[in-house]
């Protein structure tokens, strides 16, 4: 135990004496939360739209104003030239083109049916999918509310129409605020990046400067060394989590529904996994440059597959299988459940046990690979 204290004392001294360390500890969380939350937004609002209204009737105007009235669309320009409209889309000046044909109102009255054309720039599939979803819900509403007023339908048949009334309610985030979704995810990224980079570059640094040999000839026990190396980074990452949570709360007013104790408890378990992986990488490499590239590579893969950007269910089966061994998936889910839904320990038990198993494996690997040899 005393030996560990000596290691801890030394590690903390070195960390706080290192000039690049302070910016990493304090600046990274701020940048991540402030820039990422604003930059990494897939919140799709004010989609720019071009309208070609060849009909120019009351109904077509009502339809356009319905689009304009929603928070999702912004009518940027109206034109009659198809070419001009396409040019605008090609130049990224607008995303959606709405074309209302000449016989729009007439057909609606005579046949009870009419078509409109919606063209969407789909290079960004996510934006396109959402634009489509928003547009069709606006048209559905329009069909329900406005058409019966405009078009006179014989009473008898009206009676025969059956109607299902659908109400949507969005739990845990009624305003569909994208920040509520991003902040917990970014906090996960934050502790992962801090934990993985610091730990993976630490032991390898002692290798590079040669001090590891000096330590290896001492009677120090493997576990003492590993614990001494782990705890400082655990402390820093936890501090950064607290720091990040405060920023999230103060700046973005994200909901913190569940217990903070649970949040921190789970983070400790998760960090054991990450730090174990970092130390493992450190034992496999010879230079900080290699350690950094390997960490970077794994991090990109695990982050991209974590479900922060696209829902895991949409991924191909092999990716879903792979995600069973992706600790980020478990921790991301845990964080969202506790912070946004107020889930209790019982709700997240299964994920917790999985993380625990990962922690044993990664720390086991690190201890096994760390050899007290030259």
């Amino acid at each position, binding site marked *: 135990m005393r030996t560990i204290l000596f290691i801890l004392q030394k590690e903390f001294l070195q960390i706080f004496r290192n000039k*690049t360390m302070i910016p990493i500890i304090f600046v990274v969380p701020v*940048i991540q939360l402030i820039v990422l939350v604003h*930059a990494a*937004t897939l*919140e*799709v609002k*004010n989609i720019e739209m071009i309208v070609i209204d060849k009909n120019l009737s009351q109904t077509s105007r009502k339809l356009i104003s319905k689009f304009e009235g929603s928070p999702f669309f912004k009518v940027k320009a109206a034109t009659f030239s198809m070419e001009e409209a396409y040019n605008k889309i*090609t130049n990224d000046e607008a995303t959606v083109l709405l074309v209302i044909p000449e016989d729009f109102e007439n057909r609606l009255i005579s*046949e*009870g049916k*009419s*078509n409109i*054309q*919606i*063209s*969407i720039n*789909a*290079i960004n*599939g*996510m934006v*396109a999918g959402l634009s*489509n*979803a928003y*547009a*069709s819900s606006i048209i559905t509403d329009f069909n329900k509310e406005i058409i019966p007023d405009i078009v006179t339908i014989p009473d008898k*048949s009206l009676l*025969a*129409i059956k*109607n*299902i*009334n*659908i*109400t*949507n*309610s969005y*739990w845990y985030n*009624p305003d*569909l605020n*994208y920040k509520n*979704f991003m902040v917990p995810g970014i906090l996960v990224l934050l502790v992962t990046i801090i934990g993985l980079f610091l730990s993976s570059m630490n032991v390898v640094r002692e290798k590079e400067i040669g001090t590891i040999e000096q330590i290896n000839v001492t009677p120090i026990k493997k576990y003492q060394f590993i614990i001494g190396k782990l705890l400082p980074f655990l402390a820093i990452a936890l501090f950064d989590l607290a720091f990040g949570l405060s920023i999230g709360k103060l700046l973005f007013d994200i909901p913190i529904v569940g217990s903070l104790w649970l949040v921190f408890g789970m983070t400790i378990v998760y960090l054991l996994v990450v730090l174990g992986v970092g130390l493992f990488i450190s034992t496999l490499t010879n230079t900080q440059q290699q350690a*950094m*590239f390997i960490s970077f590579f794994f991090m990109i893969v695990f982050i*991209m*597959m974590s479900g922060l*950007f*696209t*829902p895991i*269910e*949409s*991924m191909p089966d092999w*990716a879903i299988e792979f995600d069973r061994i992706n600790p980020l998936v478990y921790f991301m*889910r845990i964080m*969202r*459940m506790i912070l946004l*839904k*107020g*889930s*209790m320990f019982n*709700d*997240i038990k299964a994920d917790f046990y999985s993380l625990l198993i990962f922690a044993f494996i990664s720390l086991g690997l690190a201890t096994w690979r760390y050899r007290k040899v030259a």
Partner: protein
Amino acid sequence: MKRFIGFVRKEFYHIFRDPRTMVILFGIPIVQILLFGFVITNEIKDAKIAILDQSHDEITKEITNKLISSGYFILEQKLKSNNYIEDSFKKGNIKEVIVFESNFEQKLEREKKASIQILADASDPNTASMLTNYTSALIYQYLRELNGEFINNVQITPEVRMLYNPYLLGVYMFIPGIMAMILMLISALMTSISLVREKELGTMEVLLVSPLRPLQIVLGKVTPYFFLSFVNALSIVLLGKFVFGMPVTGSFVLLMIESMLFILLALSLGILISTVSDSQQSAMMISMFALLLPTILLSGFIYPIENMPAILQWIAYLMPPRWFIIIIKDIMLKGVGLLYVWKETLVIIFMIFLFIILSVKKFQVRLE
């Protein structure tokens, strides 16, 4: 010139001899392309839902079947009462609950009106709104079929066309982004580190007293990375085309020329970084935070710049990859020519000159 060629050859050997570096140079780009391409999709499939059917009649059964057979949803749970909803959401295994009111069929027959409630877990708001939209669309479609016999239901049908990317493939967005990221990573990061390493190890001084001129030294270090990056750019485009079917609608030659310009830009940035940092570690840190994060976040790679706050949009103007991404997207997907991208091309050329001039200035200061 002969000396210079010899030096370049030596640099090539350095890179090819280290298997770890080779893996970084060629393995990482390929793995990333494959991963992004296969993993990132925007379609919804197999979303786990629960149904709370308080009526248990023919219609509710039919609607349920219609939802499940659509392929978008998997029925994970049948709930018995309202009390279980919260519980299921909190356990996090379902994304949406569909609630049929009691006596659904009866109400629909007699009052011509019945209610369905869709409850979505909006802790992931985008998925939630997609899911509710899909669900309502399916229910309305069912309703039309049900009413179809009686009357032509009055309505407007939108014909939707997805331009440039009809199947909403994620690859279309990611390949240009990854190309920018990889070229940045290899050209800027690797060159800056390899130049700084010579400084750190003291071998730079040996080179400087050799008959090679400083410009030749820098060019010699940079040339291999230029070729490697170009090979990478080419293989990304080919992978995109043959594995993911991402077309090159525009001119292939123009695409390659623009890629070379961007590689030059990244290399000049790498040289600039190497003149301002004196250890590999600081070169790495500068490259990571000044290059990689902005490339991913502020270049329009994943996130549309238009949605960002004004300050970030302004910063995004300064990001080299942003311009390159616009260019390759335009050439590959929209098939436009130089006429459409000359502005962006000029920006890139301007940046190359800017970085080179800055590096030369910095370098001269150091020599004094």
